[in-house]
């Protein structure tokens, strides 16, 4: 584990140095990511200013969900997004053997060397929204540990999805549209799940549990939790372990390209 953190720290430093090599691009990317993601709560503001809203949810509660969602996607963007694109690129160009030459797991190496500093803007934006939500919503302090556990479970789901998307590259070379499909599905996680029909609620809870990304953690923070609320943590952890297993198995399918 000590070795993992040492490698991770060094690779992140390298990734940051790499990101700042083009300073203007680095700053612009961060600002553009931040601006685009701060625009998305604007829709919520417009809806509530027009006298409408999501039934059963006041403005600050929705803002809290959206803050958790942005924070979570910022964190996953920074740590895991690079894995998908780097795996795709290495497999397509036949350079995955360079990854396999390193005495670490390919997952560790690719996750750490593809740390995405651009998503830092998203993390700041999410943090700001989350704090606004915390200040104005009626938050239960006792639920903070539950929130952290559920937030971590949401991270496991998204990390697992990224690993599965990356793993498909070994068999399906050039599958660049798959992340778009997942991102579309993730949009369900931006809003309170209770506003959707039962079928979508079930899908977002049990099939592809995007509800765990923001809705369940924020809902717990708002005081709506009991021990059963923690049950989804188990399948989320299993899902991530399964994704790690699938990625590792798929590495064996790597065949390179002509030399």
């Amino acid at each position, binding site marked *: 584990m000590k070795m993992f953190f040492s490698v991770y720290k*060094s690779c992140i430093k*390298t990734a940051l140095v790499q990101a700042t090599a083009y300073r203007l691009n680095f700053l612009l990317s961060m600002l553009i990511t931040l601006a685009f993601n701060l625009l998305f709560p604007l829709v919520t503001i417009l809806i509530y200013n027009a006298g409408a809203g999501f039934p059963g949810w006041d403005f600050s509660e929705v803002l809290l969900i959206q803050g958790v969602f942005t924070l979570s996607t910022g964190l996953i963007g920074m740590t895991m997004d690079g894995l998908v694109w780097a795996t795709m690129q290495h497999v397509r160009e036949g350079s995955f*053997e360079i990854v396999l030459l390193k*005495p670490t797991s390919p997952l560790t190496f690719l996750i750490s060397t593809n740390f995405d500093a651009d998503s830092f803007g998203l993390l700041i934006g999410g943090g700001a929204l989350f704090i606004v939500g915390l200040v104005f919503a009626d938050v239960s302090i006792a639920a903070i540990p539950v929130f952290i556990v559920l937030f971590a479970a949401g991270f496991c789901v998204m990390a697992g999805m990224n690993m599965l998307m990356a793993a498909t590259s070994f068999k399906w070379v050039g599958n660049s549209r798959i992340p778009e499909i997942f991102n579309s599905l993730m949009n369900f996680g931006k809003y309170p799940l209770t506003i959707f029909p039962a079928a979508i609620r079930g899908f977002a809870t049990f099939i592809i549990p995007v509800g765990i990304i923001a809705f369940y953690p924020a809902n717990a923070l708002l005081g709506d939790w009991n021990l059963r609320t923690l049950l989804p943590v188990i399948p989320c952890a299993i899902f991530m372990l399964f994704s790690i297993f699938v990625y590792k198995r798929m590495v064996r399918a790597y065949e*390179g390209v*002509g*030399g």
Partner: protein
Amino acid sequence: MDVIKVTNLTKKYVTHKRGSGFGAAVKSLFKREKVEVVAADEISFSVKKGSICGLIGPNGAGKSTTIKMLCGSLYPTSGTIESLGMNPYHERKKYVRRIGAVFGQRSQLVWDIPPIDSFNMNRAIYGIGREDYKSRLSHLAGLFEIEEVMQKPTRVLSLGERMKCEFIMAMLHNPEIVFLDEPTIGLDILAKTKIRDFIREINAAGTTFILTTHDLEDISQLAEHVIIINHGKKVFDDELIKLQHFVGEKKIIELTLPQPFNAETLHELNVRLVKEKSSHEIVIEADTAQQSVGELIEKLSRKMHFTDISVKALPMEEIIAKIYSD
């Protein structure tokens, strides 16, 4: 003592055959014909500790696939590899810690940052002690005289400078075996010489090198043991001196003539006409054991006029043909 032992190594791929053009592209959406490619076919060989072994063959012969399997990056379809007493693909993490590799067409350096930052990253990955790292880096950089180059972003380096940094990246953890896949590709003669000197120096300290190349000069200057692969099969596996016996001292000379070629001009020159590329371009083969290149050029210039001349080593295909015919 053998450091690598390969037995009946086979690698088969399944690819999809697709015709060219729009129709074939549409058809391939629904039905694709599978084609099995045998990149390595029951190859067996062994490599002695501390030697330099040349693995050569024409394009698509299976050299790179064999190297990748030896590095633990590709799983063989069948056969076994025992390298440093380990199975490279089953004990990959432990194994790659003790080997190094330079792929001439794939970079291990991070493109946008100076090589020194990539070296630092490798230090953490391989868990090299700070003092060991400093002294080894200073030794390797000194051999290549690239102390200043390492501080510039990789993207601004020349190919020669970049290759030198690739070598340092591969050697920092003091590997026992180093795999080189076309390490001198595209380099000028000065850079090639520097790299060959570097390999000789590191090899003298006991490191084993496995080298694939198209440049026979690399082989003749470095390798003691040569393995030739063609169509995935091993066709030669012996000392360099035995290969030289097959090949002789033959050179290929291409001449461009100002007037149409007349075959009579080659009489008494002790050369063989290989091909008339056009009425003004010919290819001849000469045995430099019988007459030096200088003597031959002198004789040629007395017998005929030519506007251009190039002297090359015998192509790999011809060497293989000679080995087959013997």
